[in-house]
């Protein structure tokens, strides 16, 4: 099966810092790929390059076989790539329904008017938001995360980019969140997950790509990469990596 998303040698520099260094990986349709690594390893920058928030200096990004590197974010969004943000970003002065209509009204196959409001209410119910008349600014942190996901889903994405969407949830909410992400995959979305919550990575991801200092250092099934010596060293330092190798 051809990949829905393929990165090939993608590089992005900020001045002298190479934030993403010749990153290559691919995502198959319906697959959940975890993008993990220590803080500052370039995960969020990689998501920004895929979603078009940043343009890569070098390398190719293919979505459904077509190059999207350097396209404006609205063009990439209309092709079916939706995202959430590391620091949750709702539209504070709009109501919850309007927040979701924002995703419905400007996608390729757009919805507007009563049909859009109906679809928005269904999406809100799906992410577990019942009271949809409030302004988004009045929601709690967790509900803002739910709202942000509903807005991303409104784009009917073929590829969903979740940037630490499961972070900051309590154990119950985390279980609900994991079930929700899994349900999205079962509906046919491919998902790239930037995440620190290991429980979520282990239970959700088909495959993990591990980044350190901008480069990919490991790739494979979650259990395998999390036991990898280079990965442990990247997270905990060289000594811990050596100890883990001795234990094995």
């Amino acid at each position, binding site marked *: 099966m051809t990949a829905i998303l393929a990165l090939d040698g993608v590089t992005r520099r900020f001045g002298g810092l190479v934030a993403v260094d010749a990153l290559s990986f691919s995502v198959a349709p319906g697959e959940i790929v975890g993008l993990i690594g220590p803080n500052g390893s370039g995960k969020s920058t990689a998501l920004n390059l895929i979603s078009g928030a940043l343009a890569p200096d070098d390398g190719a990004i293919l979505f459904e076989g077509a190059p999207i590197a350097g396209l404006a*974010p*609205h063009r990439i969004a209309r092709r079916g790539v939706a995202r959430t943000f590391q620091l949750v970003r709702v539209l504070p*002065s709009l109501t919850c329904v309007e927040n979701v209509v924002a995703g419905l*009204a400007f996608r390729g196959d757009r919805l507007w008017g009563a049909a859009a409001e109906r679809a928005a209410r269904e999406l809100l119910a799906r992410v577990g938001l019942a009271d949809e008349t409030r302004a988004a600014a009045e929601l709690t942190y967790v509900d803002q995360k739910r709202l942000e996901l509903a807005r991303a889903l409104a*784009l009917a994405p073929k590829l969903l980019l979740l940037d630490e969407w499961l972070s900051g949830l309590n154990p119950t909410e985390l279980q609900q969140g994991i079930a929700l992400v899994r349900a999205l995959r079962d509906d046919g979305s491919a998902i790239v997950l930037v995440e620190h919550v290991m429980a979520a990575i282990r239970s959700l991801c088909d495959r993990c790509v591990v980044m350190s200092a901008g480069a990919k250092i490991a790739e494979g099934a979650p259990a395998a990469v999390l036991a990898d010596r280079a990965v442990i060293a990247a997270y905990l330092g060289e000594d811990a990596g050596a100890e883990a190798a001795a234990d094995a």
Partner: protein
Amino acid sequence: MTQAAFARAAAGCAALAGAASLPLFGDGYHMALAINIANYTVLATAWALFSGPTRYISLCTVAFFGIGAYTVAVLGELMAWPLVLAVAGAIGVALALVVGLSTLRLSGIYFVIFSFGLAELVRQLVTWFEVNVSRSVGRYVFLDVTQQAIYLQLVALAAVVFLVAWAIRRSRLGLALRIIGDDETVAQHCGIDAARAKLALFAVSALFMTLAGAIMAPRWTYIDPVIAFNPVMSFQVVIMALLGGPGRLFGPLLGVVPLAFLFDILSAQFPNHATLVLGLVFMAIVYALPDGVAGMLARRRRAGAAS
């Protein structure tokens, strides 16, 4: 159409008919005041059309207004009046598109400063042209247009502005601009071409400002760049729209009426201190009424409904 919407539409028509019948009653002084109010209603509502949802504070209202006035000064006697208005509108829109393409990428304070600089640039260019090419700084506008005719044209233009603003607020473009005002990055990731949406609204807003300037031109018989491009007008429009509340359709109108009276009294009683008071009024509005009068009324209503 719901009953409430029908009632609002009827109220709007009644207000329009009332405003249009004013020339039957008023004398010259009242006519001048009414023209002033109608002119600022058009300008402030057109300003809020773009700056309300996007929160881009534009200080170049007078650039478009002045271009409208100058178009009439140059072409007024050469063409039929509707054609003059069409040419003025076309020039205003063309300028808005050129300026918008180059500046709407700027955000926040950079846009404010640039828009102010633009108005000054246009004034300097017109002055340069008049001095070096036309060989005279001022122009006479000898058009046989009565005060009543100017007033009625402005009221008609105001009605069109309100209709267009109302239609845009209900459209996808209106929602797109509110999303951009809240978070432009999110807007782009929702599939919104933010640059194009802002440009479209900026041009529509500029069209109405230009037409207002064109309609107002015959009032002055003599214009020069200092009169036609007076930067105080840009500031007054911002203050009026902010006092009324730029986020609502009739918000700017609520600011225009009291401030038009206030400025009228100030310029008559304290001609030398009017600018000082203008500044104080501006500060008081920003501190006391951050969403304007319309926002305050809406909050009161919500509080009343909740208790």
